[in-house]
């Protein structure tokens, strides 16, 4: 045995460290690349195209931003939508996404690979997913260990819950906001662990980015105060918490108010009240502690009673005054629905009708989270186990060892403040993801983190068993060899004892199971990416029985017809789902779009669709409509058509115009049908007429009568449809989009 050298110069140690670091870097790089590539399925299967509906507006806004610059964008008044009201885009949009797209655009130009705006928008989602992988690693490294960080990074690269909203082409707020969320949480965790105000500044800046990116910033500004409250209740209040929270609150709120959409909400709305309340509470606690340290016991107890009484009275009065005078607005519809899930369905049909706002179904949880949803509870248990018995030790004595121990325990306790945050984040997002499907996105990262923690802990324990056994094995073998060499003649009558114990076999089997589970997880995510979340919606693919693909491109066909065959200033009426696509792709003025900010305007459109042609014509002329566009799935079997959405039009229209009653549109038995037993008002409505015009003459399926609606599986009820004020302008290839021109009669 040579004399021991310092660790830094020991060659085996250095090689070991180098290998460790390289492996870590390689794994992270691999995870980033996988996160990037797995989001390109739709580009490979279809083409480089923007998906769905909302991203089209973001794309059009990014085009405007890149073309016209920051000042014109933030002062943009959009006249081509919500005719005749228009839309002030600056204060009604979250600009973070446009800034990010512009950053990618200008960066690509800078490095000499210029891309057009559409491809810059395509790249944003996968690139930000790679960033999310890195930041997840940093978070878990800060609260647990590097190994768990790597597992979490690999899991979040592919988890379907996150991928669903961040594929290449799904250019919407969520794709950058999850990165902003995790960035804010990372800096918050570090600022609580160290109390360093630099981290608080970073938290505030990330929060600014988050507030610019997504309406979900309300989640952060309520989760962090909730965390502070829980910390105080659990006895973990400390100076670091105060410093971190007050600095973050002041800087973060001020920064978030710089965004026009947020404007003065942080000081006026009820959604921000919790953070202000905690801010005041922390200040009060700190003030009390200050006087507690300064005053003697009796002075303090005398003073505290007076102060508490005064404070309670003043706070109650202030809150009552502010709430009753209306100065503090209550929680608005979308967010109130999270706390009172049945509220929207009975009071605000528009919010209830959005498919993303529905509560989450059980299969959806498993599909989006897979392995992480199963191991989540185990992770929570491990976190609680680590947090147990974490009382800070003070004044155990002055011996060097005692002091070192104390320092270590206290350092561990400081570090665990971050772990506590992960716990609060996990449980809170678990509740909210159950209330609203769209918030699965917020659960996905923390599910990965917690699952990684569990897997890391379990794997560590299992590995320890195995390596201990093998070390014992090595020693045992060597001692046996030594013993054998000493004895000359040894009879091997004794059966050699089993060198491998039961625990080791179980451990190896368990480790293998974990690996297999992770492989299954990976396979599931890959499958989910390729089939479920890669459809651009605007283009669809059908597979014939012989396996060949039919591309349904009716939407773009119709928009292209509109773009080339109508006047530039023509106005198109359609249901609000298609508004963004119409303005971005067809470049025509629309009446209502997906922003749904004006309920009565949407109700007017809904009423026009639900009324007879004679009743609807005055509305059409009043709104200067030139073309009407409807989506019809009866010929092709496309299920997202306007007939299926029609009852929402009736409900929303009926909410503002009482003459539209939902029961008139249902059959005598209360069912929603399109055949002869359909509701009488429905059969004569404009929507029915436009969808089924000339349909009664078509033989859609053999052995069925003419006018057989393929999607709903019945023969339609009214085939003799003719128009007095409309004429058919265009019907797409599979009759999915039908466009009608409004005749401008002189007599009107």
């Amino acid at each position, binding site marked *: 045995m040579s004399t021991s050298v310092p660790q830094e110069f020991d060659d085996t140690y250095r090689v070991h460290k180098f290998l460790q670091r390289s492996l870590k870097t390689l794994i992270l790089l691999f995870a980033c690349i996988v996160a990037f590539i797995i989001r390109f399925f739709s580009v490979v299967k279809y083409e480089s195209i923007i998906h769905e509906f909302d991203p089209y507006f973001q794309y059009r806004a990014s085009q405007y931003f890149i073309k016209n610059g920051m000042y014109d964008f933030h002062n943009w008044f959009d006249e081509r939508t919500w005719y005749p009201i228009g839309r002030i885009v600056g204060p009604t949009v979250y600009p973070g996404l446009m800034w990010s797209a512009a950053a990618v655009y200008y960066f690509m130009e800078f490095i000499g690979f210029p891309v057009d705006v559409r491809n810059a928008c395509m790249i944003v989602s996968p690139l930000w997913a790679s960033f999310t992988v890195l930041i997840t690693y940093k978070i878990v490294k800060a609260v647990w260990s590097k190994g768990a960080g790597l597992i979490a990074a690999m899991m979040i690269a592919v988890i379907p819950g996150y991928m669903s909203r961040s594929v290449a082409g799904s250019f919407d707020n969520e794709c950058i906001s999850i990165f902003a969320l995790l960035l804010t949480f990372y800096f918050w965790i570090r600022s609580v*662990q*160290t*109390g*360093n*105000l*630099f981290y*608080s*500044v970073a938290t*505030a*800046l990330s929060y600014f980015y988050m507030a610019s990116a997504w309406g979900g910033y309300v989640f952060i500004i309520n989760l962090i105060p909730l965390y502070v409250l829980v910390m105080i209740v659990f006895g973990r209040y*400390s*100076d*670091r918490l*105060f*410093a971190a929270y*007050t*600095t973050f609150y*002041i*800087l973060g709120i*001020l*920064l978030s*108010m*710089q965004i026009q959409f947020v404007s*003065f909400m942080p*000081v006026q709305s009820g959604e921000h009240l919790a953070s202000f309340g905690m801010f005041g509470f922390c*200040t009060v606690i*700190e003030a009390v502690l200050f006087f507690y340290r*300064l*005053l003697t016991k009796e*002075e303090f107890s005398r003073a505290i009673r007076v102060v508490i009484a005064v404070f309670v009275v003043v706070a109650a009065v202030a809150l009552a005054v502010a709430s009753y005078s209306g100065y503090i607005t209550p929680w608005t519809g979308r967010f109130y629905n999270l706390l009172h899930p049945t509220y929207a369905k009975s009071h605000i049909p528009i919010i209830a009708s959005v498919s993303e706002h529905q509560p989450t179904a059980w299969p959806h949880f498993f599909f989006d989270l897979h392995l992480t949803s199963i191991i989540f509870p185990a992770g929570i248990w491990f976190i609680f186990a680590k947090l147990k018995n974490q009382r800070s030790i003070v004044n155990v004595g002055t011996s060097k060892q005692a002091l070192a121990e104390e320092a270590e325990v*206290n*350092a561990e306790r*400081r570090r665990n403040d971050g772990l506590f945050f992960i716990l609060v984040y996990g449980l809170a997002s678990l509740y909210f993801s159950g209330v609203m499907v769209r918030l699965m996105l917020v659960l996905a990262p923390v599910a990965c983190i917690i699952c990684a923690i569990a897997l890391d802990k379990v794997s560590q324990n299992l590995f320890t068993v195995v390596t201990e056994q093998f070390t014992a094995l090595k020693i045992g073998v060597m001692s046996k060899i030594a013993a054998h060499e000493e004895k000359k003649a040894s009879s091997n009558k004794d059966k050699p004892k089993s060198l491998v114990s039961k625990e080791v076999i179980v451990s190896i089997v368990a480790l293998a199971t974990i690996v297999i589970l992770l492989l299954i997880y990976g396979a599931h995510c890959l499958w989910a990416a390729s089939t479920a979340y890669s459809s651009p919606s605007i283009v669809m693919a059908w597979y014939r029985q012989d396996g060949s693909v039919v591309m349904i491109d009716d939407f773009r066909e119709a928009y292209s017809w509109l773009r080339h065959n109508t006047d530039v200033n023509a106005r198109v009426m359609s249901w609000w789902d298609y508004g963004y696509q119409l303005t971005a792709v067809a470049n025509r003025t629309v009446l209502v779009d997906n922003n749904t900010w004006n309920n009565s305007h949407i109700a007017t459109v809904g009423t026009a669709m639900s009324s007879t042609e004679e009743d609807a014509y005055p509305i059409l002329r009043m709104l200067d409509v030139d073309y009407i566009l409807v989506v019809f799935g009866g010929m092709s079997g496309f299920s997202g058509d306007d007939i299926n959405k029609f009852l929402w039009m009736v409900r929303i229209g009926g909410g503002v115009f009482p003459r539209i009653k939902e029961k008139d549109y249902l059959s005598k038995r209360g069912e929603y049908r399109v055949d002869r037993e359909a509701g009488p008002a429905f059969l004569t409505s404009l929507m029915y007429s436009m969808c089924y015009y000339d349909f009664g003459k078509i033989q859609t399926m053999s052995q069925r009568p003419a006018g057989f609606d393929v999607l709903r599986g019945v023969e339609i009820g009214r085939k003799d449809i003719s128009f007095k004020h409309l004429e058919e302008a265009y019907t797409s290839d599979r009759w999915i989009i039908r466009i009608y021109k409004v005749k401008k009669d002189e007599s009107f």
Partner: protein
Amino acid sequence: MDTSKGIWNRYRTSTPGLIQTLDLFIVFCGVMVVAVFGYGLVFTTQPFNAFISAIFATAGPLFFTISLRMQILNPKEFNNMSPEWAFLSYLACIGLLFFVISSFLG
């Protein structure tokens, strides 16, 4: 009266001079917050963005200085942060705060 004099003397003797200066600044900022808020209540809060900027410009340094005070008095709690580093982070906070306020003031 005697008790408050006793408290005052205890405060003057037990806290270091630097901290007493910081405390004075804290009290000053507190007075300014009350003054700005009182002006807003009595006269007007318009233009609102200027009012908010004023509130933050006085309340911000208040809380940053409280945090700085804590970091200097109790560095063990803050992972053994040196006072110089604490002051630098304090400057960063003040810098960002007034940078934003100068734009928000209108």
